């Protein structure tokens, strides 16, 4: 589970509101704080949804720009971060739809250069002194997991990314996706069942 949940804390939430207010009062520099604070999570949402590093970067830029334009419409009914992540999910969804006609994900050879476009170069090493072999195995596993995610239906993909990878609560997910909680539960159940079957095909018995 990712460990950057601190942005959802109450203190950060209050600070988000403060910077939003500053932006709305004509200080665009304040937006940089919000970008720095949320870009990583947004990037990971976009990356896991699309499976493409460059696309994820584009999606995050576009999402921040959209958020900046719509900042005055943010009424604070939900957390700013939830609102922002909803925007990035929407942009990622649009990008997937746009590229759905193409062969979106190129197969990645495990024997290839690990610093290729698969995003492996950016994966943080869990431990700086881990044996190289463990790192390679881990990279391989993560790549396979991502390929399993990529094969899922769009709805299943986004709900798994938000709940099981990013760890958002059901309440937050209902806000981001604009769905009822019951729908989120049932969709998540089907998505988990689908990816379990996919994992079983890739990894054998779990």
């Amino acid at each position, binding site marked *: 589970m990712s460990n950057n949940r601190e942005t959802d804390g109450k203190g950060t939430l209050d600070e988000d509101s403060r910077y939003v207010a500053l932006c709305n009062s004509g200080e665009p520099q304040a937006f940089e704080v919000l970008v720095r604070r949320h870009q990583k999570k947004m990037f990971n949402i976009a990356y896991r949804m699309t499976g493409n590093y460059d696309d994820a970067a584009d999606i995050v830029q576009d999402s921040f720009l959209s958020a900046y334009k719509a900042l005055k419409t943010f009424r604070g009914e939900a957390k700013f971060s939830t609102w922002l992540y909803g925007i990035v999910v929407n942009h990622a969804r649009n990008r997937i739809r746009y590229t759905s006609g193409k062969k979106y994900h190129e197969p990645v050879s495990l024997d290839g250069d690990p610093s290729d476009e698969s995003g492996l170069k950016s994966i943080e090493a869990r431990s700086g002194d881990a044996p190289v072999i463990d790192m390679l195995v*881990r990279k391989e596993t993560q790549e396979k997991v991502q390929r399993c*995610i990529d094969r899922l239906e769009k709805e299943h993909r986004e709900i798994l990314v938000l709940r099981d*990878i990013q760890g958002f609560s059901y309440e937050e997910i209902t806000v981001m996706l604009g769905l009822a909680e019951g729908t989120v539960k049932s969709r998540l159940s089907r998505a988990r069942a689908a990816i379990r079957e996919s994992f079983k095909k890739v990894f054998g018995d779990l």
Partner: protein
Amino acid sequence: MNCSEIEDKLSAYLDGLLHDDERNNVEKHCAECIRCRHSLEELERTKNILGELDEVEPPSWLTERVMSRIREKEEARGWLKRLFLPLRVKVPIEALAMVFVAVLSVYIYRSTVTDIDRFDRPPEGPLASATRSVPEKTQAARVGKEDIEKGREPGQKEKKIGAPAAKPQGPALKEIPGPPSQVAQQDNAVRTETPGRGGPPFALEKRAVPGSLKDERVSPAAIPPSPAETERFKAKAMAAREEQISEYRAAASGSAQGGSIRITVKARNVPDTLSKVRGIMTALSAREVRERTENDSTVISCLMDPKVIPELKDRLAAIAPGTEGPARSIGSGDAAPQRVEIVVIKDPRDP
């Protein structure tokens, strides 16, 4: 609960969303059912695999790129703001725009009104031309008349001749007779020029004038000197002149109104004649009947089937012997309704 129902609840069970009794049911079932227990374990493992995915670092340039795009946007917006937002610029621009719109509206309104006036006004131009041409045509007649009506001052005559430019039906015109030959030529010249639909009245004038002038210049010597003949010529000239004027007016009206027929009815009893004319128009299914007063005459205009216009003229001639109209109906061959104007004037010969 059977296995299928348990399977549906495993995801919620993993997230701790089930109520106590549901959770107990799932746990109890999984303790007894190897298949469901295995399924739960797989699901838990699946969830863990996803949760163990490492975070991906965004590109280092991402923040700067985002902020640079935002700054570009702000600069573009700032330029527009500087141009329009300060009141010292915005208010004068708005005020100028308002003034411009107001001036433009007045200008358009005036130009439109002028056009409307031009079409609504009585056909002054052609009539004026007609009356201007009349003195030219009657130069010789005037010479003759001077011989006949001695004792009048030349200045008076000039005045009377010039005056009818605006009022062609005035008495001065009626007092300008011509010798028989001239009258006949005038009559012919005008009659041959029946006003066409929308035809230019000036063409009529140009063609009518030269011939008559030529003959008029040689005619004074032939003026009969006897008073009886003079009176006869005078009456003929008056009739010819009135007919000429009504022809001109019809021509002018035709050009302005898209080709109307003007019929002049000389009535001894104007109100009675008007009443009869209205009756005739109703009988002939006239449409858009309108009445207006022009100087000392009443004009009834209407739209009428061209086929019934000869009948109209006959009927009008029956109620007023002095009825005058164009020799032929304008556009009588057309199926489209024809604008007809009936001018009812007091018969000048009526005592």
